[in-house]
C-alpha cells in the first residue's frame, strides 16, 4: 500500500477549503481577480509550510495564511499606489464594482427580490474598515467560533467580541438611512 505523498495529503486536507479561502479573499481585496492571485499565493505558501501543520483545523489554518498573504499584498499595493500617485488609471481601488461579481445564490427569483437589500448591504460592508469586515465575514459567513477567529487574526477573544459588536453597530448606522427610505 502506498503512503500518500505530501501533495496528496495537501490536496485532501487543504484544497476542499478553496471556497472559504476565496470568499475571505474576495471580501478583503474587493476584487475577484486580485482574490484569485492572493488565494493562489496563499496555497503555495500553505504547501510550503504543510509539513509543520499538525492540527486538525485545516480551514482555520488556511484562512490564517490567506489573511497574512492578503496583508502582504495589500501593503505592496499601497506602496505602489503612492509611487504612481499620478497615474489615476493604474489602481482605482475603490471603484471595483462588487455588484458585478457573480452571486452565490443561483435562483433568479430570490436574486431579484434580494438585489436591493443585497446591494445596500454590500455597499455598507465595503465602507466598513478592514479590521471589522474581516471578523464579520469570518463570523457570519464562515461561522467560525470566537476562538478560531482570535487565532486567525492574532488577537484576544475579547477583542474579537468588541470588534464584532462595533462592526455591527457601524453597519447598522450605515444602513439606518436606507431603512427609513424603504
Amino acid at each position, binding site marked *: 500500500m502506498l503512503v500518500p505523498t505530501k501533495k496528496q495529503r495537501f490536496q485532501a486536507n487543504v484544497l476542499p477549503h478553496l471556497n472559504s479561502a476565496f470568499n475571505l479573499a474576495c471580501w478583503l481585496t474587493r476584487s475577484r481577480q486580485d482574490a484569485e492571485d492572493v488565494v493562489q499565493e496563499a496555497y503555495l505558501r500553505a504547501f510550503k509550510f504543510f509539513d509543520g501543520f499538525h492540527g486538525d483545523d485545516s480551514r482555520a489554518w488556511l484562512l490564517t495564511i490567506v489573511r497574512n498573504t492578503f496583508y502582504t499584498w495589500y501593503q505592496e499595493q499601497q506602496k505602489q499606489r503612492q509611487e504612481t500617485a499620478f497615474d489615476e488609471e493604474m489602481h482605482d481601488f475603490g471603484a471595483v464594482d462588487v455588484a458585478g461579481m457573480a452571486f452565490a445564490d443561483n*435562483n433568479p427569483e430570490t436574486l431579484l427580490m*434580494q438585489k436591493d437589500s443585497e446591494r445596500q448591504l454590500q455597499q455598507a460592508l465595503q465602507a466598513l474598515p478592514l479590521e471589522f469586515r474581516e471578523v464579520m465575514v469570518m463570523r457570519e459567513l464562515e461561522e467560525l467560533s470566537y476562538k478560531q477567529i482570535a487565532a486567525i487574526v492574532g488577537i484576544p477573544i475579547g477583542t474579537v467580541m468588541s470588534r464584532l459588536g462595533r462592526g455591527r453597530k457601524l453597519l447598522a448606522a450605515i444602513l439606518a438611512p436606507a431603512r427609513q427610505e424603504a
Partner: protein
Amino acid sequence: MMDHQETLELLPAFADQELGIVETQEVQRHLDSCPDCQREYAAQRIVSARFKKDAIYFNAPPHLAQRIGNALPPEPARAGSRRFSWISLGGALAAGLALVLGLGLYLNLPSDQERLTDEVVASHVRSLQVDHLSDVVSSDQHTVKPWFNGKLDFSPPVVDLAPQGFPLVGGRLDYLAGRPVAALVYRRAKHPINLYIWPSNERDAAPQLQNHQGYHLVRWTWDGMNYWTISDLAANELQNFVGLVRSTVRQ
C-alpha cells in the same frame, strides 16, 4: 451582579452564544430588566441576521483549483529515483513522463465506482452553475417529496435538517449510473450539499468517505437505496450531515 456596562460589552458574545453558562445567565438576568440592553441586543441580532442572509458568498471559480494544482511544485520521484540522478534533466523528465503515462494507462481503466465518483462530481459542479441547482425550490419536505411523483419510479426519503443547521433548499432530477435519480439540495452556511438517492439491490453498506477534485463525497447503501452526497464542506461536517440523514431516515 453584573453591571450595565459589563453587560453591554458582553452582548455580542451573548447574541452569538459564545458565553459560558454562568455569564449567559447573568447577562440574561440584567437583560430582563434593562430596556437599553434589550434594544442593543435586538440591534446586534438584526444586523447579524441580515449579514448572513444578504451578504454575498463568493464561491471559487472552477478554474482556480486547476490553476493552484498546476502551480504546486511537482512530486519528487519515489524510491529508486536515486539511481537515475545521473540522467540529464530532460532524460529524467522524459522517463518520468513515460512512467506517468504508463501508470496512467494501466490505472486508467476505471472501476464502476470510480466512474460513478466522476459522474457525481461532474453533476455537483454542473448543479452549481447558474439556475441548475434546483428544479423545485422549497425548504418544505412535503413540497419536495411529492414533486418527484411521476418523475421517478421510486419515492426518495426527503428529510428536513434545518434545526440541525442543514436547511433543505430544493430538489432536482438528475441522471447517474445510467438512470434517473433524485437529487436533494441542502445548505450549510451557504455551502451547497447535493444528496443523490436511487434504488439499489445491494446489501447495506456503511458510509465511506472519499476525496475527489477537492470535494468530499460520502456514499452508503441502506434499506434498498443508494445514497451519495457531495460538498465542499470540511470532511467532518459532511460526515456530521451524513449521520443526521441516516438517523432521520431510519425513523
